[in-house]
């Protein structure tokens, strides 16, 4: 059998270890380099050990306002996470039966994952530009003072930015729901219904606890994919940039380890979120068992 520990097995183990090294190695190099002394550069050798570059990052020296970009990204990530969970779980429930337009919606879901992000970003930007023109036209035609005086743009983080990110996170959420319901044992639900539970009660007491661990997975995708999203957000964030957008700008301008310090911080945030999610997942699974 294949699982015999022969030569091929060890070749495969070696190959897998190399792959893991390839995945994580570079990230750990920059984490290491971010703890250099004040004379450190972008490459090895390490010039002393300190937290100088983190302090530098904190002071905001030489770097754009990272603090507020960071805050914006976290807030947007949490909103995207909540909406991704709510919308994809409810759509997942709907998809258990065929409904009017379900094939089209499924097609859109898959299409949204593979449409080039720059195309979608352009589309949303165009849409909001037309919306702006329309709003201004309304203002001048009907003499609406508020619009004429204060209106600038509909483009923004919580309008176009949020929508563009949802087209990236929702498909992951729905596909996870599909995977969950394809392996879902309907007999628990039928038992609840036979015992006289209302549809809402059946969901709350039976279905929800069973799918809760997977919902953690959807939340994880929702937050992390939004927090790191770049291509789809690139044209639609309006005035305030998210952290990945600032980072992309910094790659061409910053030549000190401060960019590594920033990398270490955001990687730490991502790892914390992933860790918390996995812990919640295991906890919920155990509770169920």
């Amino acid at each position, binding site marked *: 059998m294949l*699982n015999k520990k022969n030569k091929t097995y060890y070749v495969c183990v070696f190959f897998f270890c190399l792959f893991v090294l390839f995945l994580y190695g570079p990230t750990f*190099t920059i984490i290491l380099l971010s703890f250099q002394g004040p004379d450190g550069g972008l*490459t*090895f050798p390490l010039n002393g050990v300190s937290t100088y570059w983190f302090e530098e990052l904190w002071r905001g020296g030489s770097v754009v306002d990272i603090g507020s970009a960071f805050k914006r990204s976290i807030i947007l990530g949490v909103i995207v996470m909540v909406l991704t969970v709510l919308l994809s779980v409810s759509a997942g429930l709907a*998809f258990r039966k065929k*409904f009017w337009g379900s094939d089209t919606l499924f097609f859109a879901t898959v299409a949204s994952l593979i449409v080039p992000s720059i195309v979608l970003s352009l589309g*949303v930007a165009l849409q909001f530009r037309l919306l702006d023109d329309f709003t201004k036209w309304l203002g001048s035609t009907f003499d609406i003072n508020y619009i004429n005086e204060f209106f600038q743009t509909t483009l923004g983080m919580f309008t176009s930015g949020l929508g563009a990110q949802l*087209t990236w996170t929702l498909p992951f959420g729905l596909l996870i729901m599909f995977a969950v319901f394809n392996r879902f044992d309907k007999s628990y639900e039928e038992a609840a219904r036979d015992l006289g539970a209302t549809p809402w009660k059946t969901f709350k007491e039976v279905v929800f606890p069973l799918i809760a661990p997977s919902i953690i997975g959807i939340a994880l*995708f929702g937050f992390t994919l939004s927090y*790191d999203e770049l291509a789809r957000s690139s044209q639609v964030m309006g005035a305030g940039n998210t952290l990945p957008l600032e980072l992309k700008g910094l790659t061409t301008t910053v030549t000190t380890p401060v960019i590594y310090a920033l990398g270490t911080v955001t990687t730490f945030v991502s790892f914390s979120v992933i860790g918390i999610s996995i812990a919640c997942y295991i906890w919920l699974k155990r509770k169920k068992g």
Partner: protein
Amino acid sequence: MMKFLKLKPTVGLLSIPYSLIFIFFFFIPLTLTFIISFWDYNEYSIIPDFIFENYSYIFKDCFNFEKDMCVTFKTYLSTFIFCFVTWFFTLIIGFFVAYFLAFYVNSITWQIVLFLLCTIPFWTSNVIRMISWIPLLGRNGLVNDFLLSTGLADAPQEWLLYSGFSIVLAFVHLYTLFMIVPIFNSMMRIDKSIIEAAYDNGANGFQILWNIIIPLCKPGIVIGSIFVITVVMGDFITIGIMGGQQIPSIGKIIYVEMSYLQLPAAAANAVILLALTLLIIWIMTKMIDIRKEL
């Protein structure tokens, strides 16, 4: 209509919020992109019209075969080459990682742990993962230090960073996961008794791999390939950062045109990119039914 009424309508209604997002942020934007690709523009605004100049400009000089290849075709060719090379390496690496996880790791717990180990980087920042190659591949990076100190090279190698090589390396680094997940999924569905039967009948490891595992993994391979190819086709960020902003791509043309507010021109390029992407996907999905694979 009767069929619709017979279904429980309330459950279907739960899809409405999800649908609204897709109508407003997917269908309408893409339709507008198509429409605006026929509009006119000047420095300040876009002007409703029905012209083909945006398209004809893209292919200007492209069908004059006496001259050198036009910029558009050169860019497309370069993007296709990145697609192919990235596809090739992600497929080989992704397949063997999935193969190891599916057939050589026996405990479910370890399977999950190792699978997660491959997935975690996907949930971290792509930009950080790209710039983390700088200390390794840069002129004073670890690889060059190694090459110089061992005498394998007598001058720092410039092609390691900000080159086609570093772009492909970053793509493989970022997107091999897109291959691992669907191929692993396909592999987990293979009935182990088929493999045992083949083994009992005297098939060797390679025969099992070639005649059983690979054919049964075809759906996973196709899905993974679609993801990798489409993500590279439309890329402008990885090619930008890892190419030192010197190497063109289709996505980058759109990006640059947008920054100059030549929106209808960008829209025309986007329409062509989208059409090409859909063509590739259409050809590939002819081979499988995606919905069955979840």
